[in-house]
């Protein structure tokens, strides 16, 4: 396949691959085991300008978009999805500021997000508001020149490590989505604290924590967009970042295929390399084909978004759905090809299988993606009538 990348995109891809191979891969198992946040690797990504790829030049970025961000996420995910999601989550926190922030807010936050000197995070999910995002209970009450936030956010990627949080709260829980409002909350704001750090099945290098707000005073200048626009901010943000999750899935799958193909061409049983058996050969063929199909879908959606296409919800959902299902299937098959070795932690594929699972769950479960796609298909059919 040739995706006709520009010279700059080639540089971004090659450098990300180099960092993944030389710096991340040798330490992936270590961070998976220790569940420590990989700050030294994050610093390398920052020093190499990778956080800058999707940020406009006026804020110190490289002027790329979702496509460039996907290239980085994909390459990093081949080595470690936990490191990749820590990188990607900063964009998840940064995109809403870029899309909905005032000039002053962008000037204040974007340069540090672009340089990677500060990580960002996005906080929507709560214990009773997962797929049902409109059901959030974290409240924001206006009090003079600030808002007072109370409530708990759950499973926030980069929680505790990030400095800048885009938090979705509600001015009135009775209003549902129409009461939802987005705020930029900085680490260190009084009344803003972090709860327990989760112990996860996969992506264990990444930090996932609760955010706890107890009479947390957020200045009015940190209101993102307008009151009542929080649900829209969240949905538009997720439209933009879903290809990132899909790219993560493609990267995990590619990493697993690379390992499985390498193993199949060296492992000898019955006097033959196992890759010479049709049973294995056909598995590898299906894995490779599915990955390439997923990649084409992801790149295409990323291009659509970057070209300014407005109606991307269905396509973004398709990319995320397909790529993450491919990642789950391919990583399972990679473990199967490795046989008993694949089940052992001494080999990298079982981690990839654990990492792949989350891509079917976060930023909208695949069931939610199917609902989005399905209702769009029905709507199109009705319009044609």
């Amino acid at each position, binding site marked *: 396949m040739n995706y006709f990348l520009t010279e700059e995109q080639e*540089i971004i891809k090659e*450098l990300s691959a180099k960092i993944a191979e030389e710096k991340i891969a040798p330490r992936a198992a270590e961070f998976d085991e220790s569940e420590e946040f990989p700050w030294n690797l994050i610093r390398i990504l920052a*020093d190499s300008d990778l956080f*800058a790829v999707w940020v406009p030049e006026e804020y110190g970025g490289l002027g790329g978009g979702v496509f460039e961000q996907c290239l980085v996420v994909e390459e990093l995910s081949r080595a470690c999805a936990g490191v990749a999601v820590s990188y990607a989550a900063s964009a998840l926190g940064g995109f809403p500021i870029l899309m909905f922030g005032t000039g002053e807010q962008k000037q204040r936050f974007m340069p540090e997000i672009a340089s990677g000197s500060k990580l960002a995070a996005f906080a929507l999910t709560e214990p009773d508001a997962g797929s049902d995002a409109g059901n959030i209970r974290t409240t924001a009450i206006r009090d003079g020149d600030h808002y007072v936030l109370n409530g708990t956010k759950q499973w926030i990627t980069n929680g505790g490590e990030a400095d800048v949080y885009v938090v979705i709260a509600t001015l009135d829980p009775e209003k549902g989505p129409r009461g939802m409002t987005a705020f930029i909350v900085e680490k260190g704001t009084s009344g803003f604290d972090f709860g327990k750090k989760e112990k996860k099945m996969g992506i264990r290098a990444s930090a996932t924590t609760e955010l706890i707000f107890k009479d947390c005073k957020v200045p009015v200048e940190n209101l993102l967009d307008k009151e009542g626009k929080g649900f829209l901010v969240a949905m538009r943000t997720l439209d933009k970042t879903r290809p990132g999750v899909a790219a993560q899935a493609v990267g995990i799958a590619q990493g697993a295929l690379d390992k499985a193909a390498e193993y199949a061409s060296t492992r000898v049983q019955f006097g033959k390399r196992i890759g010479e058996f049709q049973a294995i050969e056909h598995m590898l063929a299906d894995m490779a084909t599915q990955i390439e199909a997923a990649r084409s879908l992801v790149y295409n959606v990323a291009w659509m978004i970057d070209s300014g296409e407005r109606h991307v919800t269905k396509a973004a959902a398709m990319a995320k759905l397909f790529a993450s299902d491919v990642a789950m299937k391919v990583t399972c098959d990679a473990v199967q090809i490795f046989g008993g070795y694949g089940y052992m932690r001494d080999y990298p594929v079982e981690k990839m299988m654990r990492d792949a699972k989350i891509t079917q769950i976060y930023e909208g479960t695949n069931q939610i993606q199917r609902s989005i796609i399905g209702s769009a298909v029905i709507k199109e059919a009705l319009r044609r009538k």
Partner: protein
Amino acid sequence: MNLVVLVKQVPETTDVRIDRKTNTLIREGVSSIVNPFDMYAVEQALQIRDEHGGRVTCISMGPPQAEAALRETLALGADEAILLSDKAFAGADTLATSYTLAEAILKLGEFDLVICGKQAIDGDTAQVGPGVAEHLDIPHVTYVSKVEEISNRHIRVRRMTEEGYDVILSSLPALITVVREIGEPRMPSIKGTLRARKAQVITWTAGDLEADELMLGLSGSPTQVARIFSPEIRPGGEIIEGDSAHEKARNLLARLKESHLL
């Protein structure tokens, strides 16, 4: 502070093949990289510059393709890159190479510190660095594992030895060759890589140097390679066991007598 780094482009694989007729490396079909030890030298130079200011100039002698190695150093943040490339330089041994590099450094003008990798992974001689220092008539320290301090006039470094390290204070200008322990080389940045693609790598030919032509290339190379072979692996030493110092001493004495050394 003006820092000069000497960089060599080498074949990627350490599994190099040798042409048995000419006793030289077969370079066809092998991709090239910057000699890994030179990357440590670049890193050390960039660290000194980042802390004390100044300029990092990387110099390489080689065929026109060696420009790629220099661009890599520019992507990491080197300020300037100079390629010494001329048919007259071809076939140089370590003597002619170090002479040519020294002439290039003199042409650059003022410099405070020259940094090299401890050796190149293809030839493995470790002679060019010290050779350059001799041609320049400046002090040199090999196998440097740490730069402890650098000022306008002095540098204090650690030199790795088999037992530990020496601390050496040298006047400047000087030349050091560095080992892996100096610290991991940084990764290039996207902005640096984009800059490096556009940057100009200056090429100097023999005519640009005020050099004695008889000392360049093959004519300046007295080395004759008689044979290339893998050296025998030195067997490890023997540890004399014993429950007490007294017993160990007795056992040692017995072994020495047994070997007719006493």
